[in-house]
């Protein structure tokens, strides 16, 4: 509070000066964006360019990187493990979207209502988001222990005899899918809850008068009104799924064999276990490229870039 007071006092004195310089428009100038822009350049753009350059070198982390031209890239092209990683990452991303979106959407819309116990239950659903990914993955690792974990009891019912879930390719992949969904659905629920709250009450009132039931209202009002929210949530979800890492590191270490080695884990394996930083940079560059393309495509194809309002004609 002590800081806030003088700031507030200074503000009126500055305001007129700035308005004069900018023909009365009170918008902040380029200078205001400088700290943020510099931070972004130093900690995001510059490292990304460096990684792009490293992808054309051979570097083991000590000494000087040596230029090797396209050799990392031709290796990438031929490496079956990389192909598998890209395939697994894409499948994981699609399944993540298919699995998380409907659940988050329904939970979010439900949480936007005014039912009894809603606040309490929403708070409970929100809990997984508060834990650290590493701690949560460790908890799940214990739950998935085939002899002492939960999966020892329920594994056979799921089709994993002897609780051998992490040891089977599909089981381990499913575990990653499930644990990350369990962890991130609350975030998307929150986004949908916010979106659903912003839908004008009058639309529902009018629909009710016309005789529309809950289901009809959901499909004719809620869903179309949430169009932009769906895009926002999907972009976060897709980019998030392409960069899942800690859950894989702790839960499966990319195994069994390489059957859950998705691209970010492959990058870590090459970079920080093999110290083959040139090749790891090439993998990272691919990841940056794919994630950027996918999110741009999503934004383009859905018309989100035009920022068309969902309230047109109201």
């Amino acid at each position, binding site marked *: 509070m002590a800081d806030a007071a003088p700031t507030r006092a200074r503000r009126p004195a500055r305001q007129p000066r700035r308005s004069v310089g900018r023909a009365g428009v009170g918008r902040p100038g380029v200078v205001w964006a400088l700290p943020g822009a510099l931070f972004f350049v130093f900690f995001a753009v510059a490292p990304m360019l460096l990684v792009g350059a490293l992808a054309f070198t051979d570097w083991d982390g000590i000494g000087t990187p040596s230029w090797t031209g396209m050799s990392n890239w031709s290796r990438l092209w031929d490496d079956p493990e990389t192909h598998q990683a890209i395939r697994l990452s894409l499948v994981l991303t699609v399944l993540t979207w298919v699995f998380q979106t409907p659940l988050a959407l329904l939970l979010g819309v439900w949480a936007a209502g005014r039912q009894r116990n809603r606040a309490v239950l929403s708070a409970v659903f929100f809990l997984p988001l508060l834990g650290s990914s590493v701690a949560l993955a*460790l908890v799940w*690792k214990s739950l998935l222990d085939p002899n002492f974990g939960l999966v020892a009891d329920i594994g056979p019912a799921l089709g994993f005899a*002897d609780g051998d879930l992490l040891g089977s390719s599909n*089981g381990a992949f499913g575990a990653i899918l499930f644990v990350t969904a369990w962890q991130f659905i609350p975030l998307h629920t929150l986004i949908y809850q916010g979106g659903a709250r912003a839908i004008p009450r009058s639309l529902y009132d009018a629909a009710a008068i016309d005789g529309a039931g809950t289901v009809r209202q959901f499909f004719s009002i809620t869903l179309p009104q949430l169009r932009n929210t769906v895009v926002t949530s999907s972009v976060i979800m897709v980019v998030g799924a392409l960069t899942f890492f800690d859950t894989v590191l702790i839960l499966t270490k990319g195994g069994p064999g390489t059957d859950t080695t998705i691209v970010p884990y492959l990058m870590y394996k*090459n970079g920080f276990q093999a110290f083959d930083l040139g090749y790891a940079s090439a993998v990272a560059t691919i990841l940056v490229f794919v994630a950027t393309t996918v999110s741009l495509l999503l934004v383009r194809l859905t018309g989100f870039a035009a920022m068309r309002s969902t309230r047109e004609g109201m």
Partner: protein
Amino acid sequence: MRIPRSRSTLRASTLTAAVLLFATALTGCGSGGPGGSDDGSLDVWVYQDASTKVQREVIKRFNKTSDIKAKLTEVPGEGYSDKMRTSMGTPNAPDVFFNWGGGSISDFVRKDMLLDLDPAIAKDPELKKAFIPTILDAGAIDGKHYGIPMRGMQPVILFYNKEVFEDAGASPPESWDDLLGLIDTFKGAGVTPFALAGTDAWTELMWVEYLVDRYGGAGVFRKVQSRGMAAWDDPAVLKAAQTVRDLVGRGAFGKNYKSVNYTADGASTLFAKGKAAMHLMGSWEYANQKANQPAFAKSGLGWTTFPAVPGGSGDPRSVVGNPTNYWSVNAKLKGDERKTAIEFVKFAAGQDYSKDLIANGDVPTTSDAAALLAEHENPDYARFQYDLVKRAPDFTLSWDQALPATYTPPLQTAVQKLFNGQLSPAGFVDALKGM
């Protein structure tokens, strides 16, 4: 970050892994942080864990005798490899530092960053005699010594659960036939013969290392180290891989070993609770059991050697595992600083140092430590380890640590695939040759 070497502290350290990943990313920038010898003192880096207090003590003793003072930097365990690697070649590099020998320093040796200690060892016959020769040699690269042993030994031992053996009326295996017989005995009793943590590939690697050693001797892996990956062609490697498949097929590891972990104590608990009869693991298993199942560690834990295999030419007295950790000296040190650094690493050969190690529960690698072992908290276990290592003609450093870092991930993947049945024995050999 390679495989964590001090596995007894793994459980806690996994928790901090992600935090440290971030931290190493920052320290990697080389800005600030401890290091550098500009202030005229000797900068000593050590892997921080329960054993660090031994190094704290030796620094105190050393500084009483020396004009140039040594200063200890304790680097949190999980990030040690990364930090060591990113600092070497920068002005922040340590003067003397802890390492695992073999692959952990071979890249530094190639770039002439480490001091060859052979002249110092040649000048001081006492120093050479001070350590068990196999241990001193296990840290050598291309026949030259770059490290002085400075921590306890960590051989891989075949542990067994005494109670389970008593219930089954069995005795520890002395031959391969005994071992195969025990598999059937315990399967009949509804007990998993061997606990195995299949999600942590390095635990499976121990089996392959011992089998290759028993079939073809320590020379097989030495050939790989000196001649490259084509040397995996040795028939002993194929034979070992076939034996692994045979063991898996007999149900030696139970049915769900692929999902069992070591880092969250899955395998150790299985073993301690009597659901598994035996466990092939590094000597740190004792400390691990003491922390989690103290009663079992005290009275239920038995240990024996890995048996010979039929038709094998390897010496059954040989061991595999982590011989010890080493001090290495940075080659950039000159004149008095270099002399002081060599004086400092020699302190690890002293009796005071060995006593501190024993008080800490470690088994020292010095050749005169036998008389001191009575002071160990478990003298029988300490003597077993010490004798095992002392009479071993060869102590093979774990492959994933002996080979340069770049081979670690493909090696571990191939081993895991072999155990999982995703690779045939012949495919396994091909995978190793193709690394």
